[in-house]
């Protein structure tokens, strides 16, 4: 099978092109010699199946970042039939260098000038035929976001694959018919480094007209307000608050409706089917598996809404402005604007946010960011809080409790950074691109949200099934005990941990839920549903409210917010930090902080009232 690699700078729409070409049926592939996973997918052109690999975005093939090293190792280890070099058409004044480096390595390549619509809007005009002739590589103009020019890219790929061995447009030594990995990549690029600058200037002179004045008035005007020294931050937080409010307002009714529906299906359809089975197995399947899964599945709409909203914020270009606005504050915490953006992404899910710290080269900065990110109130925890808040407080107060938890999440992150910044000092430079504001397209945002929800479901399903089944078993073993009574396994576990958890108001029932929450917060709600034997959210809420007082509930929420988010997060901290000691520090610190916070709250309320 032929292998095509997508190569380009960050912010060139490389991944959008990847999805457009492959229909986004991507999987994660392992490549020899690489420590990171690359996205890959198959695409069919003219009945021929090709393999497309999305390489990490890089600035320079000789660059010093991890991503740049990954791309080098990939090219040195993998024979590629074709490299698709993706450049941002409106930034050819600096991006042509990368195409020239690929040309210097004599790799078979097609140059894709993406975001052609934007280039035109900004007054950049490109003579692609001249550029192609001068560069000696096919050049295609396209706009991946709108799917324009896709056919031309496919056509160029087709032609290039047929002719790359026979009549290469350049009279230079030809690539072998069977592709080979690049030899002596660094030495060859180093030898011709000096040619890049004049070559790029000559290409620009011959084929590209740049505007004398920046034409993007919209970005200029928006930035004047959104990056305003006084208005910028309040506007940003107002926008975020509005988004969360919107997710809450739309998502919660859907969640409740879906929960009730799934519960009804269980009672009306599944229960009659199970009657022939022994009682123990019946309970296991219906009260364990179905109720647990149903409670979690009902939460999927809220997650989808969250990723939809974050997708809009990110694609619009506002997220990189957040890095600009917050950097001065973050710098004083020993972090930077990127840590803030990653923490913000962590409000969706901590795992990708921690993976995202790969963009940082300085180890101190990276570790400190990894220590802070788990305090971001992720969607799985929000799931628990929305439910508990609805069960214990009237709507208006409930919203206030949720807001308080977001605030607490922020305070915990800041406190953690202040405590540990001395231990993880850093001096990483921070230079980031601020892209022009863009209108996100609906298909793009939808497909991203869909991918995230799929990923979430895939990622958590195994944990959830394992978790709810284990909770149910703990509650119902040894055989014959009254479920969840003090004689059951869970009851004994609760008694065992009581000396530690009693002072913070966590009773044995909640203890079991917390124990399983260590695996994943998705299980907490499913676990509670199993413990209290209620799947319908309203009924479950009433059952818990009858068992637990409101200060206990809030203490439980605080503990859930602050202790280890989930095993996946621990695993990814371990694999990214490559330090067991650091992983232990992260888990231990969050447990300590959670216990102390809950203690102060619970005992404080008792003293006051």
């Amino acid at each position, binding site marked *: 099978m032929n292998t095509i690699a997508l190569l380009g700078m960050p912010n060139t729409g490389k991944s959008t092109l990847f999805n457009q070409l492959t229909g986004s049926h991507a999987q994660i592939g392992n490549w020899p010699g690489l420590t990171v996973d690359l996205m890959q997918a198959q695409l069919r052109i003219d009945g021929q199946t090709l393999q497309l690999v999305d390489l990490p975005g890089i600035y*320079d093939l000789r660059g010093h970042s991890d991503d740049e090293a990954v791309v080098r190792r990939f090219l040195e280890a993998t024979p590629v039939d074709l490299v698709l070099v993706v450049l941002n058409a409106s930034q050819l*004044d600096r991006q042509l260098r990368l195409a020239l480096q690929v040309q210097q390595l004599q790799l078979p390549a097609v140059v894709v000038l993406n975001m052609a619509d934007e280039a035109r809007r900004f007054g950049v005009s490109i003579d692609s035929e001249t550029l192609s002739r001068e560069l000696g590589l096919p050049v295609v103009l396209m706009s991946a976001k709108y799917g324009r020019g896709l056919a031309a890219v496919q056509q160029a790929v087709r032609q290039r694959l047929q002719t790359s061995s026979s009549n290469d447009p350049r009279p230079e030594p030809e690539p072998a018919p069977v592709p080979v990995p690049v030899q002596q990549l660094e030495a060859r690029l180093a030898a011709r480094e000096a040619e890049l600058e004049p070559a790029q200037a000559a290409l620009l002179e011959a084929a590209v007209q740049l505007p004398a004045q920046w034409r993007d008035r919209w970005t200029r005007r928006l930035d004047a307000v959104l990056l305003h020294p006084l208005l910028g931050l309040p506007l940003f937080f107002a926008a975020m608050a509005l988004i969360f409010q919107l997710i809450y307002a739309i998502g919660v009714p859907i969640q409740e409706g879906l929960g009730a529906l799934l519960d009804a299906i269980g009672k009306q359809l599944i229960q009659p089917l199970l009657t022939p089975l022994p009682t123990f197995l019946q309970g296991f399947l219906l009260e364990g598996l179905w109720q647990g899964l149903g409670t979690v599945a009902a939460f999927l709409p809220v997650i989808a809404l969250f990723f939809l909203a974050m997708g809009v914020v990110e694609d619009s270009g506002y997220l990189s402005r957040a890095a600009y606005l917050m950097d*001065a504050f973050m710098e004083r915490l020993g972090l930077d604007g990127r840590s803030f953006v990653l923490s913000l992404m962590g409000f969706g899910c901590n795992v990708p946010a921690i993976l995202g710290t790969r963009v940082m080269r300085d180890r101190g900065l990276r570790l400190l960011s990894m220590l802070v990110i788990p305090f971001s109130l992720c969607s799985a925890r929000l799931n628990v809080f929305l439910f508990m808040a609805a069960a214990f407080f009237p709507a208006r107060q409930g919203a206030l409790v949720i807001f308080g938890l977001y605030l607490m999440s922020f305070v915990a992150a800041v406190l953690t950074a202040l405590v540990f910044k001395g231990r993880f000092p850093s001096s990483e430079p*921070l230079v980031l691109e601020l892209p022009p504001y863009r209108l996100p397209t609906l298909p793009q945002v939808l497909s991203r949200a869909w991918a995230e929800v799929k990923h979430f479901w895939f990622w958590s399903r195994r944990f959830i099934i394992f978790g709810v089944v284990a909770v149910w078993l703990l509650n119902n073993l040894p055989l014959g005990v009254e479920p969840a009574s003090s004689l059951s396994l869970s009851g004994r576990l609760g008694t065992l941990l009581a000396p530690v958890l009693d002072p913070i108001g966590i009773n044995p029932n909640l203890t079991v839920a917390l124990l399983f929450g260590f695996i994943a917060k998705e299980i907490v709600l499913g676990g509670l549903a199993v413990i209290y034997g209620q799947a319908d959210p309203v009924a479950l809420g009433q059952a818990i409210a009858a068992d637990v007082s409101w200060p206990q509930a809030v203490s439980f929420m605080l503990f859930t917010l602050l202790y280890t988010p989930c095993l996946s997060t621990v695993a990814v901290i371990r694999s990214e930090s490559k330090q067991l000691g650091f992983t232990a520090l992260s888990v231990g610190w969050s447990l300590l902080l959670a216990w102390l916070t809950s203690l102060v709250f619970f005992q404080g309320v008792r003293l006051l009232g």
Partner: protein
Amino acid sequence: MRTDRPLTDLRPGATAVVASLTADPGLRQRLEALGLRPGQPVQMLRRGWWSGPLHVRVGMTELMMRRRDAACVALAA
């Protein structure tokens, strides 16, 4: 060319030409890849408060950069 001044001294709205980069190789490469190369005009768009980052434009690219890093960029006087 007379004595150079650092990019951090540029006032909002003003434009000057990059004279040289004194950054370490890693940062230097990144700055050049983002368009900050000797001979290129660079415009200061805004400066963050509380010693916050700078917002500059070079060629068709807009960047935010910390003052400490911008100090490595010398402008032709």
